[in-house]
C-alpha cells in the first residue's frame, strides 16, 4: 500500500484500529477486581507488546520509508504512546494504578510480603513508556507519600525510643529503601528516596537526638557505645552539618570533663593518678574515634585541641607528667616487657605534646632525672634513653642536650671512679668512694655549702680530688654533699648487723656516733655543718620514723627541737639486713617550692625571648610591633607560650640597651641597631 501511495491511509488506519483495540483493553482492565487489576494490566501489557512487535514486523516497510519521509512517529513508539494515552492516562486507570502501587509499597513498609515481580514489571512498563511517565505518574507521588510516611513514623519513634534505638530504626529504614530500589524501582530513584529518609528521619531530629537525655551523644561517649556512635556518625554524615554538630557536642563535652579532671582537688593529690586519668581519657577517645568515627581527621583535630585546652588549664600538668614518668621509670616498669614500656612512654609523649609550657616540664624532668640517676634508681637505661630520643624528636636537639649531658656524666664518672680505684689499690679495705662528676650547667644543682665530712671520708675525697685534677687540669671540683648517698655497715646493741642505705648528710651524722654515745642537736650541727633545715629533716627521718629509727632522741616527739639529745638506738630491729633510711623520692612540690620553680622558669624565659626578638630583628631590620609579637610567639611555641606583656617588656629593655629603636615617624615600627 505504501508503494501505491496509500501510506497515509495505512498509517491512520493503524492508529484508529489500535486505538479502538486499546479502548477495549482498557475496559477489560478497568473491570478487573481488586488485586487482579495489576495482573490484568501486566498481562495486557505483555500482549500489547507482543502484538506491537508483530505489527512492526509486518509494517516494516512503512516504518522504513514512509514514516521518516513524513516525520511521523515510528510504529513501535506509536504503539507505546497510544498505550500510554489510552490505558495509563485513561481517567479511571491512572489514579487507580497510582494508588495501587503506593498501597503496595506502604504494605511492604509495614511488613507485608508483596509480589515484587509484578511490581517490577509494572514499574518497568512505566519506564518503557518514557522516563517522564515514570517520574510523573509514579516517582513524584511516591516520594511525597514516603516523606509523609517517614515524617509520621519518625515523630512516633522519637517519642518512644531512645537515641540508640531510634538510630537503629532509621538505619534499617534506610537500608530497606535502598533494597526496594534495587528490587523494583529505577536505580536513579535511590538518591531521591534516601534523601527523603535522611531528611525526615535524621536531619529534622538531629538536634533532639544528639542532645537526648540519658541516651544522646554524651551518654554514648560516657559509656563507650561504639556501635551506636558509629551508627550516629554514619547517619549524620549523610545530612548537612550533621558531623559538625556531633563534633561540637563531643568537643564541648570533652572540654568540660577534661576541665573537671584537671581541676578536681582529688586528682591533684596524686600526680601519678592524675596523669593516668589523662592517659585513660585519651585512650578512650582515641578508641571512639578509630572504632566509631572511622578515624575522621576533623574529629582527631577536635580531640587534640580539646586536650591542649584543658591540660594547660592546670599549671602543674608539666610537673605531674614528669612525676608520672619518674614513677614509671623508678619502679613501675619492673617486670613489664620492653614493648610495653615503649607503649606507655609513647602515650606520655602524646600528652606531653599538648603542653604549652614545655620548658617547665624540662625543668622538672631534669630534677627528677637527676635524682633518679644519682640514687641509681632508674630501672631501665634503655627506657630512659628512648624517652630522651622522643623528647628530642618533639622539641629539637637543644631541648635535650643537657639531659643527654647528664647521661654522659654518669658514664664518664663510672670510668673515672674505676680509674681512681685502680690507681689507689691500697684503698680496698677502707671505705670506698663512688664519685659522680657532674658538669655544672647540665645538672639542676643548688649552690650548697659543703658539710664537714667524717675524717675517713674527707681524706678519701682529697685523694680523689688530686687524682681527678691530675688528669683534668684547669677544672674545679666542688662536693655536692646534699645529693649523695652512702651505705654503712652498723652493729647495734645485741649484735644485730645491718647495712644502712642513707644520704650523705645522714652518714655524716651517724659517723659522729662512732666516737660518742650521746650527742645534743647543737653538737651535731657543729660537727657536721649541715644547714639547719636539712639537718632537721635528716634527723627526723632517722629518729622519728618507725622501722627506720636507728637513732633515739630525748625527749620523744615528732619534731626536732634545738635542745634535743640523740642516742644510737641499741634496740633497733628490722626484718631486713639492708635498711633504706629516708629515701629521696621525688615528691609533688609544695606551694613555695612551686612558686620558686615558676620564678626560675620565668627568669629563664627572658633571655630566650630576647634572643628570639634579636634573631628576628637581625634578619628583618625593620618590623612593626604586632608582627614582632606574632613571630616571637611562633618561634617560642615549641617550648612555651610567651606572654605578650613579657615580650613587650623585653622589647623595651632592648630599646634601652640600644639593640632596637623606634622609628622616628611611625612609633609602632622598630628598627634593629647593628
Amino acid at each position, binding site marked *: 500500500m505504501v508503494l501505491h501511495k496509500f501510506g497515509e491511509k495505512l498509517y491512520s488506519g493503524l492508529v484508529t484500529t489500535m486505538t479502538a483495540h486499546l479502548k477495549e483493553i482498557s475496559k477489560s482492565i478497568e473491570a478487573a477486581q481488586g488485586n487482579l487489576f495489576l495482573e490484568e494490566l501486566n498481562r495486557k501489557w505483555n500482549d500489547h507488546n507482543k502484538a506491537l512487535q508483530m505489527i512492526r514486523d509486518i509494517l516494516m516497510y512503512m516504518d522504513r520509508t514512509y514514516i521518516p519521509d513524513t516525520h511521523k512517529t515510528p510504529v513501535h513508539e506509536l504503539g507505546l504512546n497510544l498505550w500510554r494515552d489510552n490505558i495509563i492516562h485513561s481517567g479511571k486507570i491512572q489514579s487507580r494504578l497510582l494508588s495501587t502501587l503506593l498501597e503496595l509499597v506502604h504494605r511492604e513498609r509495614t511488613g507485608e510480603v508483596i509480589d515484587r515481580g509484578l511490581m517490577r514489571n509494572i514499574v518497568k512498563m512505566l519506564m518503557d513508556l518514557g522516563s517522564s511517565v515514570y517520574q510523573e505518574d509514579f516517582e513524584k507521588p511516591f516520594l511525597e507519600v514516603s516523606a509523609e510516611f517517614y515524617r509520621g513514623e519518625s515523630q512516633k519513634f522519637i517519642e518512644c525510643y531512645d537515641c540508640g534505638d531510634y538510630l537503629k530504626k532509621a538505619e534499617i529504614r534506610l537500608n530497606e529503601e535502598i533494597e526496594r530500589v534495587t528490587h523494583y524501582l529505577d536505580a536513579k530513584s535511590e538518591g531521591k528516596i534516601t534523601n527523603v529518609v535522611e531528611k525526615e528521619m535524621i536531619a529534622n531530629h538531629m538536634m533532639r537526638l544528639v542532645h537526648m537525655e540519658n541516651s544522646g551523644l554524651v551518654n554514648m561517649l560516657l559509656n563507650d557505645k561504639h556501635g551506636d556512635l558509629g551508627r550516629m556518625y554514619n547517619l549524620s554524615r549523610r545530612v548537612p552539618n550533621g558531623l559538625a554538630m556531633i563534633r561540637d557536642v563531643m568537643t564541648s563535652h570533652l572540654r568540660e570533663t577534661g576541665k573537671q579532671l584537671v581541676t578536681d582537688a582529688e586528682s591533684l593529690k596524686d600526680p601519678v593518678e592524675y596523669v593516668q586519668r589523662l592517659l585513660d581519657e585519651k585512650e578512650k577517645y582515641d578508641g571512639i574515634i578509630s572504632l566509631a568515627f572511622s578515624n575522621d581527621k576533623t574529629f582527631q583535630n577536635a580531640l587534640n585541641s580539646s586536650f591542649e585546652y584543658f591540660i594547660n588549664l592546670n599549671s602543674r600538668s608539666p610537673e605531674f607528667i614528669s612525676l608520672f614518668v619518674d614513677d614509671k621509670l623508678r619502679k613501675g616498669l619492673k617486670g613489664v616487657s620492653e614493648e610495653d614500656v615503649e607503649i606507655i612512654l609513647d602515650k606520655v609523649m602524646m600528652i606531653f605534646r599538648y603542653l604549652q609550657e614545655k620548658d617547665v616540664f624540662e625543668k622538672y624532668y631534669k630534677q627528677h632525672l637527676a635524682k633518679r640517676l644519682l640514687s641509681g634508681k632508674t630501672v631501665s637505661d634503655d627506657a630512659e634513653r628512648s624517652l630522651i630520643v622522643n623528647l628530642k624528636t618533639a622539641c629539637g636537639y637543644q631541648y635535650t642536650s643537657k639531659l643527654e649531658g647528664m647521661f654522659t656524666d654518669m658514664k664518664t664518672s663510672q670510668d673515672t671512679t674505676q680509674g681512681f680505684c685502680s690507681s689507689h689499690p691500697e684503698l680496698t679495705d677502707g671505705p670506698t668512694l663512688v664519685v659522680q662528676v657532674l658538669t655544672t650547667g647540665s645538672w639542676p644543682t643548688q649552690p650548697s655549702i659543703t658539710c664537714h665530712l667524717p675524717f675517713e671520708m674527707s681524706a678519701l675525697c682529697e685523694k680523689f680530688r688530686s687524682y681527678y685534677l691530675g688528669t683534668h687540669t684547669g677544672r674545679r671540683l666542688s662536693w655536692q654533699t646534699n645529693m649523695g648517698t652512702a651505705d654503712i655497715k652498723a652493729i647495734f646493741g645485741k649484735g644485730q648487723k645491718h647495712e644502712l642505705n642513707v644520704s650523705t648528710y645522714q652518714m655524716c651524722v651517724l659517723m659522729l656516733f662512732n666516737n660518742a654515745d650521746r650527742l645534743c642537736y647543737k653538737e651535731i650541727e657543729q660537727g657536721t655543718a649541715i644547714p639547719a633545715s636539712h639537718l632537721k629533716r635528716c634527723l627526723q627521718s632517722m629518729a622519728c620514723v618507725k622501722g627506720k629509727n636507728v637513732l633515739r632522741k630525748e625527749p620523744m616527739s615528732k619534731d626536732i627541737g634545738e635542745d634535743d639529745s640523740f642516742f644510737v638506738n641499741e634496740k633497733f630491729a628490722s626484718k631486713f639486713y639492708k635498711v633504706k633510711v629516708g629515701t629521696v623520692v621525688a615528691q609533688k612540690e609544695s606551694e613555695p617550692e612551686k612558686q620558686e620553680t615558676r620564678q626560675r622558669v620565668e627568669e629563664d624565659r627572658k633571655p630566650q625571648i630576647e634572643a628570639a626578638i634579636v634573631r628576628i630583628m637581625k634578619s628583618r631590620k625593620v618590623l*612593626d*610591633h*604586632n608582627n614582632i609579637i606574632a613571630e616571637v610567639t611562633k618561634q617560642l611555641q615549641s617550648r612555651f607560650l610567651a606572654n605578650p606583656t613579657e615580650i*613587650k617588656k623585653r622589647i*623595651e629593655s632592648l*630599646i*634601652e640597651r640600644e639593640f632596637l629603636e*623606634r622609628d622616628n615617624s611611625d*612609633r609602632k615600627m622598630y628598627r634593629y*641597631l647593628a
Partner: protein
Amino acid sequence: MDSLGPNRFDIFEIYRQFCELRRGDTYVCGEEGYRQDEESQRAKYSRDRLNQLLKMVESRMHTRTAIFDELHKLMLQLDLTVDFSEFSCFYDFVFFMCRENGQKNITISRAVAAWRLVLAGRFRLLDKWCNFVEEYQRHNISEDTWQQVLAFSRCVHENLEGYDPEGAWPVLIDDFVEHMYRISGSNKDSNAFCCCVDSEPQLCAYEDTLP
C-alpha cells in the same frame, strides 16, 4: 660649646646645642667610608655628642635641684604653643636634663615632677598619670617610656578613647590604662570622673598644641 664660660651654666645655650644635635645640624659628613651606613654613623655621632654635652652639663651644675627652675625659665622664653616639633624637642630636652650621673634612665620622682612641669595643660590625664606612676611604678623611667608618654598624651582622650591595646605602648602605659578602666568600672558614677578633668583649664591648651 666653646662659647660657654668655664663656670657658667646657661640653660639657653645648652638647649640650643641640644636642638642642633637632635636635628643633626652639626654633623659634617664627607669623610670617606662614612657614606655606606651614614645613618648609623650619624646616630652614633650625635649620641656621642649628647653624652659629651651631658658630662659638660653635669660638671657645671652645682645644685641639681634647681634644674626645674631653670627649665621653667626656659619654657617661659620659648614659644612652644606654635610648633609641635619645637615642643617635642623641648620635651626630650627635659628628659635629657633630668638624667643624673650619666645614667640612661631617670628616677620616678624626677620624672613625675618633670611631667607636671612640661605637660601641664597638654595632657588631660596628667594628674592621674602622675599619681599612678608614683604609686605603682618600681623602676626608673626609660627614655622610650618618656617619649611614648608624649605620643600617648596626644592621641588618647580623657575617656581613653583612641587607645589601642595593640598599639605598641610601653607596658607602663598599658598598666595605666588597665588601672583606669578598673577605677572607672568600679566607680559607677562615671560623670564625676569626666567632670574633674574638664574642670581643669586644660582644654584650651590641648587644642593649641595641634599643629
